[in-house]
């Protein structure tokens, strides 16, 4: 079975800000425009469009994908919006991939946009509606509950401390100081800063969390034969995977994200990766909270269960370490406009693998990177593996 090979050939992104003046369509357009410009293409060259954006509730716009379609370059084109909650941004990797690998499209424009600031008084309140309308919503849960519950279970199960976890926030926010689009980059933040920050929902404190953001990211994907004409350095989609666990999240073991492992295995198998800890050179796991980076590294089989904090403490996951994790600065550092944040990780791999990440560039010649996002009720894992080598 020989699958049509697909590559990422261009990328662009807006700054991630707390409250953007630009409308959602304008944010999408900026990112899409930059992505096309980055590889010298115009809308005429684009066969189809893939949009990703998380809850319509933020914008108060029903069928938000339709509303975003013109800003995303989809006037007069086939366009589809995929949606797996927080996993959406990295799911755009598989989504764009199957558009092109199917043979139906040679070039697709993939756009992720999020404007959370429209929702008043605070976007966090919109998350009330993600809970089951009958069995959970009447308890008036705050979004922080599910993270705090999971974080506590993870800490308790493996004996991990707040201090261990806070290192991730420090690493990523410091990394983000080198990202031109970052909202929360801070070159001199310390573990003490994190541990002294306001307790929101213990064990979650303010600096453990990435806040509400607005922003957009876009990439261009093209088929083999076409990609090489667009750029002399296409970055190939080597593997994709996704997995959605049961909605009954309170029946599951929150200490381990099994759905991330399943998504990762699906992607590793497609990529022919047998020893991920050796073969994945850059990792961009989803880090809306600092403990999540650790949780996800374990689910990605890149660290033993409960042992990811040690890798952080040893500097293994620093930009100059043996396995750089979130060299972009992640959500904790760059910001979290949900779908755009996920696609930002895919774009980061694209830039890193081409040596174009500027001050964030990981040393050496990384050949393969993995981006992962998470979403829903501790429920979905989405994985995209990119590499400099054309798949066999």
């Amino acid at each position, binding site marked *: *079975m*020989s*699958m*049509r090979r697909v590559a990422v050939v261009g990328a662009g992104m807006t700054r991630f800000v707390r409250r953007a003046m630009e*409308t959602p369509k304008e944010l999408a357009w900026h990112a899409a425009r930059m992505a096309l410009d980055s590889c010298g293409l115009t809308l005429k060259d684009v066969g189809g469009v893939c949009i990703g954006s998380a*809850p*319509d*509730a933020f914008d*108060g*716009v*029903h*069928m938000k*994908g*339709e*509303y975003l*379609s*013109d800003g995303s370059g*989809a*006037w*007069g*084109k*086939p*366009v*589809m*919006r*995929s*949606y*797996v*909650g927080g996993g959406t941004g990295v*799911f755009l990797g*598989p*989504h764009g991939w*199957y*558009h092109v*690998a*199917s*043979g*139906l499209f040679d070039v697709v424009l993939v756009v992720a946009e999020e404007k959370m600031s429209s929702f008043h008084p605070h976007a966090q309140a*919109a*998350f009330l*509606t*993600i809970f089951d*309308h009958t069995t959970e919503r009447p308890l008036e849960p705050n979004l922080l509950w599910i993270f705090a519950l999971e974080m506590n279970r993870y800490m308790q199960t493996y004996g991990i401390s707040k201090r261990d976890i806070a290192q991730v926030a420090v690493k990523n926010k410091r990394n983000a100081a080198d990202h031109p689009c970052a909202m929360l980059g801070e070159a001199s933040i310390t573990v003490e800063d994190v541990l002294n920050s306001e307790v929101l929902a213990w064990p979650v404190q303010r600096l453990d969390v990435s806040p509400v953001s607005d922003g957009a990211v876009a990439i261009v994907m093209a088929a083999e034969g076409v990609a090489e004409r667009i750029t002399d350095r296409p970055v190939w989609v080597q593997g994709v*995977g*996704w*997995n*959605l*666990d*049961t*909605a*009954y999240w309170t029946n599951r073991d929150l200490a381990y994200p099994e*759905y991330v492992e*399943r*998504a990762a295995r*699906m992607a590793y198998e497609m990529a022919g990766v047998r020893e991920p800890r050796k073969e994945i050179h850059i990792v961009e796991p989803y880090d809306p909270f600092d403990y999540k980076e650790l949780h996800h590294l374990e689910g990605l089989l890149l660290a033993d269960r409960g042992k990811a904090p040690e890798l952080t403490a040893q500097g293994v996951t620093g930009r100059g370490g043996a396995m750089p994790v979130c060299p972009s600065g992640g959500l904790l550092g760059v910001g979290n406009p949900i779908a755009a944040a996920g696609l930002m990780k895919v774009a980061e791999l694209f830039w890193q693998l081409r040596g174009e990440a500027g001050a964030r560039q990981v040393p050496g010649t990384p050949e393969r990177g993995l981006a992962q996002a998470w*979403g*829903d*009720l501790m*429920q*979905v894992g989405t994985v995209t593996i990119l590499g400099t080598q054309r798949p066999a």
Partner: protein
Amino acid sequence: MMHPVAIIGVGWSGFRPVTPDVSYKELIYEAAVRAYADAGVDPRRDVDSFVTVSEDFHEGTSIFDEYVPDQIGGAQRPVHTITGDGLHGLAAAAMQILTGRFRVVVVEGHSKASNILTLPHITAYAMDPILNRPLRANPLAVAGLEACRYMHESGTTREQCAAVVVKNRRNALRNPAAAFGADLRTEDVLVSEAVASPLARLEISDHADGAIVLVLADAETAGRLSPRPAWIRGIGWANDSPSLESRSWARAVYAEQAAAMAYKMAGIGNPAEEIQFAEVDDTYAYKELQHLEALGLCSLGRAGPLTVEGATAPDGCLPINVSGGSLGVGHLLEASGLARVLEVVLQLRGQAGSRQLGDVYTGLAQSWRGVPTTSGAVAVLSNQLGGRES
């Protein structure tokens, strides 16, 4: 197409104006169990990927994809949502199979419209929040504007639109799944209350609850499991402008473009001759006529007269919406396109009971996402690989 894709299983539950005895999960489970029995697959073992279609504001839940996997057998499997019509979901599933990496992919769509207390408001929230919504117009006005311009440019009359209603609701009488079968006369439609002129109440489809699950497979699996696969010869989808200020008001450009994409893939050069029957969107009566012309099944202005002449009746030369369409079956929100495909598949299999159209081999299903969108999709299906041999 490199690796042909076929629909090998269909299941549905409903369609009824209210379904108070079951939750949406139970409604979908029923459709899923039927589809898997029909296809001869175990979802926990044989299905490689699942695609569902839904919109948060129709469910009253944000990130609704959280709640989709269990009732379709997708827990801990590759599952994703498309915020589109069922035909967009079908396209997503077909593309996955065409990559060569997936052999069996499931598509699910449903409606619990009866549970939405403020549906007209929610439809209005699809309108531009800055440029259009402050006008506080009923979103049906957008359909009224379009109907007005379409009738002006095509010469279509109100009587011709009414004939669509009469035909489709009468067709629904022979569809055991339909919610709104009725024996109406043209006059009944014309005197029903004006809602957003020229639309009268009986020209607007009512909503129904229901769920539809389809099982798609690659050629080898289809050959093994299905006595009569419904091959997807072509699929297309497209958007015109979402902006009211920038769109074509008379033509369903999205349908023209979606059809062009599907026809090209299917190798159809003369749709009026090669498509034997079709299920098209008739959310409002005039839309059926506008869509027939956009699909190239007849020329501009001819759909109305053809309907009055009986050409699109079940015994006519181009049966349209033999199922009853949305007007007769009930509008199923995102599942509407799946209801159109469902009928095409049943007809191609010879399983349409008293609605059976005799020997048919190529049918078309088309969907539209409703006001205020200009988004739609088209699928061309056949019970023969390679089209029109016998």
